[in-house]
Every structure is written in C-alpha cells, then in structure tokens.
C-alpha cells in the first residue's frame, strides 16, 4: 500500500510549483484548510491561480485572504469579487481594483457545478443561472425547453487543499456537518489532493463504506492536524 500519510504540512505542499492552479474549499469558517494554506504561504510559490468561493474573511484567522495579501496570486476564480457589505473590504479588493490580480466572478452554484464537471469528465454544461446578467456576456446561449441557458466549462486544478474531520490510511474521508461544502468536489477535480485531518488517522476498514464522503482514490497526501498552537484550529467567531 502506498503511504499517503505525511508528517508535516510543509512536506505535503513542498512540491507545489510557481504557476500552479489550486482549489481552496470552505464556506464560512468550516472546511477551510487553514494549516495547508499557512504552509503554502511559508513555501513561497508564486503566480498562483486560485479557485475558491470567496477571497477570505474579516478577522485574523488564517485563510486565503492571507495568501492573497502576499501578492503571490495572479488570478482568482470565485463567487465574490467584493464583500457582500461594502464596508468590509479585504486586501483582495484593493489588488483587484488596482489591476494587480485578475478575477473571474462566477455564481456560486455554477462554480460548484464547474468543479464537479471537472472531476466528472463533463465537457461543458448549460445552466439557466446568470442569463440576462453580466456573467452571461460573451457566453454561448441556447434555448432548451423554452428556457434560455448559457454554456459553462469545467474547472480543474493541479492541487486541492482539503480539510476533513476523519480519514483512514487509504485516504477515505468524512466531513462533519457544513464542513463538507466544496471539499469533496475539489478533492475529485484536482490532480493532487492534500488533506489536513482533524482526528487521528484510522486504519483501513474503520470507516463504514456506506458513510465515506470522499473515496480514497481522490486522496494523495494527508497530515494529521497537531494540537494548538502547532496546528490551526477554529475558535468561535463572535461579531
């Protein structure tokens, strides 16, 4: 059996080259691979292309916003190029407005579906989402069953950085509650999938086959998150 368990986050991300396309899951705090993002920042790869629902959150928790601040990102594919509230500007927005980072704004469901298509070998798909809006500009239109649709293409990545609740040594993963979000989709759409795991990594067979969320065939590397302060763990965000 191939060993997929790595002893450090730094080792797990060491080979990510300049120019890599990387998928980052997370929706709100749950499911963000904070430890792998921190390791990627330490590692120093540049000219990166990111695929992620957002571009970070307010506050000082480690997330993609911290990576973007380092100006090692050239392009960001996401559902928010501005925060929902104009008062909550992040580093991304200034860089984007200055033209220092390119962005592709994608409706969230289209983003999720494009990532799924990337992992599922679908060449392209028609969706009604975005018809009549700026995101439809320049896209192919087609009326299907009396309803207008636009054509959207798959997203793939060189790497996906994933956070899971539980794993076995083969790489079968489980997520807990809304931690799941983009994680299974990105694990499937990336060439190399690297996972930070919240619990001790189990022996094969300890996860019920009916209850695996990401099958081991999509997982390449895993690191158990150490206790704080060595590992990054969420704490409640209270506003």
């Amino acid at each position, binding site marked *: 059996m191939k060993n997929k368990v790595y002893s450090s986050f730094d080792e797990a991300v060491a080979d990510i080259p300049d120019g890599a396309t990387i998928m980052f899951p997370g929706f709100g705090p749950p499911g963000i691979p904070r430890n792998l993002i921190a390791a990627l920042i330490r590692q120093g790869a540049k000219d990166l292309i990111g695929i992620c629902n957002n571009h970070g959150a307010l506050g000082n928790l480690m997330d993609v916003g911290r990576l973007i601040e380092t100006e090692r990102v050239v392009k960001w594919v996401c559902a928010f190029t501005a925060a929902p509230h104009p008062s909550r500007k992040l580093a991304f927005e200034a860089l984007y407005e200055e033209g220092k980072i390119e962005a592709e704004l994608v*409706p969230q469901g289209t983003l999720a579906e494009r990532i799924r298509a990337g992992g599922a070998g679908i060449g392209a798909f028609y969706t009604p989402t975005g018809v009549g809006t700026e995101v439809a500009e320049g896209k192919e239109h087609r009326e299907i069953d009396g309803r207008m649709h636009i054509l959207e293409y798959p997203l793939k990545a060189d790497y996906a950085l994933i956070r899971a609740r539980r794993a076995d040594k083969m790489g079968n993963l489980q997520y807990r509650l809304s931690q799941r979000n983009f994680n299974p989709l990105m694990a499937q759409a990336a060439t190399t999938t690297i996972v930070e795991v919240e619990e001790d990594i189990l022996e094969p067979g300890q996860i019920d086959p009916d209850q695996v969320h990401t099958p081991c065939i999509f997982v390449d590397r895993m690191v158990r998150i150490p206790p704080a302060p060595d590992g990054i763990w969420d704490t409640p965000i209270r506003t």
Partner: protein
Amino acid sequence: MEKTPLDRQVMCNRLAREFQDGWVINLGIGMPTLCSNYDFGDKQIIFHSENGVIGYGPLAVEGEEDLHLVNASSQYVTIATGAAIVHHADSFAIIRGGHLDATVLGAYEVAENGDFANYKTAGRKGGGIGGAMDLAVGAKQVFIAMEHTTREGEPRLLQRCNLPVTAVGVVTKVVTTLGLFEVTPQGFELKEIAPGYTTEDVQAQTGATLIIPDNLIEFNA
C-alpha cells in the same frame, strides 16, 4: 395616525406567513434571515442553506457554537431534527433543480418586470454574487425584503433596474418598510400598506406606477 416604517422583523414575518407546511426555504444574507424567527406553529418548514445544510434551526447560543455548522451568512446555527447534509454541488442541484419552494433575498432594486439587483453597487468593480443568481432562477418563488428607499431617499422599486441585475423576471413578492407588493404582468400591485400611510405616500416614494387594488388592506404580519 403616525407614519412609522415597518420593522424588519415585522416585514419578514409577513413573508414567512406565506410559507406552507413542508416548504423548503432558502434565506439570503442579512434581513431575510429574520424569517426564521417567525412562529410557524404546526407547519414544518425546512431551511436550506447554500453550504448543503437541509434543515437548520435557530442561531447557536454563545458558548454552545458547533464549529462545523454555519448558515449562508456564516453565523453558527443549530441543526434541525431530521436534517441532512450534502456537498456544494448537490446543494445547488437542489436550488437549480427547482426543489426550493421559495427564497427570500435582500435587494438594492426591484423592477416592475420582476428583475432585481442585489450583487453589485454603483461604481464598484467587484460584485458579491454568492448563491443569489442560482437562487433567483431556481426557487419556485422569489421574495424580496428590503427598505422601501435608499438612505438618500431614492426609490428602490423601479420601472427598470439601474444596477446590474441578479436575474430577470423572477421576483413574485416584495416586502418593504411601506408594505407588501406583488409583481404582476401589469407591474407592482400594492397588496398591504403600512399603518398610517396613504397610497399617495407610497406612490411618491416608488419609481414605478403602482396598481392599487380595491381590496387593499392594512399591512398584517
């Protein structure tokens, strides 16, 4: 009678009253989340959020947050009895596939043809689409909850949207600080009016010609 704009919770209660037993509902960021505070009595309402939670409950009490569970506004919530979790593509398959009975969204502008704008403000390069475009085309009904006018007093109910639209021709009902409106093929129909206001008051703050039906009633949440 004093003219007091409707309270946000009262506005959302009015929309929540439309929800029927067994409905699956998605509440947008901000004001719409107040709909979940309504007392639904015997009705079972299932709240869906974009991150794949089918069945969430009230906000978590401070100190009892489950760090693996937030709603679409990134607030820590509780899980409802009989909930289910799916991943993000399956969550939007629910939305796009027509499996939501209604969504309640905030907006900057709503037009009398059912267009609305809620993701991009004037003069800003970026936008925050999130799940709004999918919700707008996927849900069986799109309800909007918003202030009747901007902070500067400009109308938000318009003949046509000025801002980039989130979707075209999808809004069915709008609740504002001044009343409840239905989007009809002929335009906005004022169904219920805030206490103390006259139809002329409301028309004066609206950027489209209102239809005033004979059976107009006082706002009733």
